[in-house]
């Protein structure tokens, strides 16, 4: 196949590109320039779209011996990922920008362009398995598994995706990079949101949305127990950074239970009040078989690296509900609910949907 390898400048995508070459594909490397102003991220930034990352990617492509280009995707990235991220927070939800980037950029804008240019598929360094059966499975390295942020991909998108790293642990990938003389073998992982270089999400949001002081209200008494500078900066389940004026009567910690953008109110309460047994979601994508017309038993994951709980999932038109067998705390609207079928050969992604409540 003629494949396009998206190369971030990190170790995973470099090894993925090299493995695609070994597998006999005709590989072209592309670094996606996602920042509108790459120069500002010249040094010290921990994101994935700095000038240094672009050079690292180019050097890796040269070592692997494949053509390499930079594609300017900044405009699309800002519209579909960054602006969406801000809008979601402003609406009181908690988005996952990596998931959105896969859905809208890597396996949409980039994939579409690649296909138009005559490529058959896009290769990335995601840790997930995608075999000849077309099923998306968790990586063998459960600590690094990224199937959650890929579960939004449709059948058509998965059919044109190649994930060469699913059967390798991160340690194996690093060792392989070293064997292949790739200088990025020891490069630290990026953990942060790539477009928030200093890791200060709250500061970033304040810069985009401005500060709007509002009240923090206790859920049971309705009493005002504190203030904030913008409800958008909070996430359901959050405990730290609430700066409450008064302790709870029972002296136990309080958590964010909900965010109401309309009134700019953050509601807090005890941990038990966070417990959710029924998750509602919208826009289901189903790739692990036929769309189920009856409730099915499976496992669900409600945020990246979150716990996995047994559940009964129903898909109904544009909606999806998951009845959890045991309650879970801190389910945030905007995150994805991903349904998995346990499987000794790697848990299979059945489908996903966006949590509404």
């Amino acid at each position, binding site marked *: 196949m003629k494949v396009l390898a998206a190369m971030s400048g990190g170790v995973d995508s470099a090894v993925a590109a090299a493995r695609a070459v070994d597998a006999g594909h005709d590989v072209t490397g592309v670094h996606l*320039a996602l920042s509108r102003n790459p120069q500002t991220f010249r040094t010290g930034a921990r994101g994935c779209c700095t000038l240094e990352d672009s050079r690292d990617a180019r050097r890796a492509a040269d070592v692997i011996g494949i*053509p390499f*280009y930079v594609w300017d995707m*900044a405009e699309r990235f800002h519209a579909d990922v960054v602006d969406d991220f801000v809008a979601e927070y402003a609406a009181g939800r908690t988005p996952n920008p990596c998931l959105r980037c896969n859905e809208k950029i890597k396996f949409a804008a980039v994939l579409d362009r690649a296909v*138009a240019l005559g490529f058959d598929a896009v290769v990335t360094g995601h840790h997930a398995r995608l075999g000849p059966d077309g099923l998306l499975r968790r990586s063998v390295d459960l600590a690094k598994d990224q199937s959650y942020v890929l579960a939004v991909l449709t059948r058509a998108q998965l059919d044109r995706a190649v994930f060469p790293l699913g059967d390798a642990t991160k340690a194996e990938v690093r060792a392989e990079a070293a064997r292949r003389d790739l200088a990025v073998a020891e490069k630290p992982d990026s953990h942060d949101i790539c477009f928030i270089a200093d890791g200060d999400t709250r500061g970033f949001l304040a810069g985009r949305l401005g500060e709007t002081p509002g009240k923090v209200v206790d859920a049971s008494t309705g009493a005002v127990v504190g203030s904030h500078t913008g409800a958008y900066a909070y996430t359901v389940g959050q405990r730290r950074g609430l700066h409450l004026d008064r302790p709870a009567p029972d002296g136990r910690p309080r958590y964010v239970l909900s965010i109401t953008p309309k009134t700019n109110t953050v509601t807090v309460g005890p941990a038990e009040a966070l417990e959710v047994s029924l998750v509602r979601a919208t826009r289901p994508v189903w790739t692990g078989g036929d769309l189920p017309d009856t409730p099915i038993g499976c496992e669900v994951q409600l945020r990246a690296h979150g716990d996995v709980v047994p559940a009964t999932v129903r898909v109904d038109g544009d909606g999806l509900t998951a009845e959890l067998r045991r309650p879970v705390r801190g389910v945030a609207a905007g995150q994805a609910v991903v349904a998995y079928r346990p499987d000794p050969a790697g848990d299979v992604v059945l489908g996903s949907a966006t949590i509404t409540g």
Partner: protein
Amino acid sequence: MAYLDHAATTPMLDEALAAYVATAREVGNASSLHATGRRARRRVEESRERVAAVLGARPSEVIFTGGGTESDNLAVKGVFWARRAARPDRVRVVSSAVEHHAVLDAVDWLADHEGAEVSWLPTDAAGKLDPALLRAELSAHADRVAVVTAMWANNEVGTVQPVAELAAVAAEHGVPFHTDAVQAVGQVPVDFAASGVSALTVTGHKLGGPTGVGALLLARDVAATPLLHGGGQERDVRSGTLDTAGIVAFAVAVETAVKGQQEYAARVAALRDDLVRRVREAVPEVVFNGDPDDRLPGNAHFSFPGCEGDALLLLLDAQGIACSTGSACSAGVAQPSHVLLAMGADHDRARSSLRFTLGHTSTPADVDALIAALPTAVDRARRAAALRTPR
């Protein structure tokens, strides 16, 4: 493999490479006083004379440098500094909107860091400068102008400027005139004295010499403040131990290229005309950029409506065809060409451009290969560009 990017760099001539290797085997610092040093010095001075002879300069006017970028910087900044030092109110720089970045960014730097005021001369739709506009500029400001700099021939669209006329206007007003002739030497007749310019940039790797060697031809009566301080090897204007082998090979290449210019230009222009005709046949909507007549013999430059140059380059590269979008990269991301924009193109047209440049090793087979690959590439690039509007 069809190499259609000779304006980026062109293969070394056999005679230049042979001269390089032979000289590089010899030890010798041209500044040393002993026999070995004298031998090196003789090689350098012979080279200076050869370069001067074929370019219409005196040997003392040849300053060897590390290439085109250095020569441009030395001419622009060095003459600016020297002229301002002589008269503090001379702070104006006159340049053109289509210069190479080696001039453009040097001028911008003077504006940002040395308080220079800059007058950018516009071009017409073919990228050509109008001497009347320079006359108007100098009539109004001549006493404040430190230096005028305008290229001999444009590296992107190949347009050749009326350099002698421009230089004559500058001379009328007693203002030094620098020209970046990197793309011109060996391609069109270039004679330093006859052109009337005060400073001229030439570089080795565009004419069959080595990379990293070039010269600034600088008239004796024009002062330039050095960029590099040290041993003062070159007229006290440029310091650094001379690269004897590089200079010898550079001189051989300049001599060969200039002496063979007419024959070269006729052969390459015929090949280029064939390329242009066949590209037009293959892709009837193409827009041919630059001046059709006053043009470098090896340059063909097109806009492909509805395509992105980037995508075309990738697709042609995959077919073994090397060409250029001509646009500079800012942080690895291609920017629309300032040359095309200066010529009045909109962003889409600027982004849809591709440059094919022929040179001394080009053959009809290179053109055949391009024409074979182009229609599919254009078709695919067009489909890719159509996706740009978000769905």
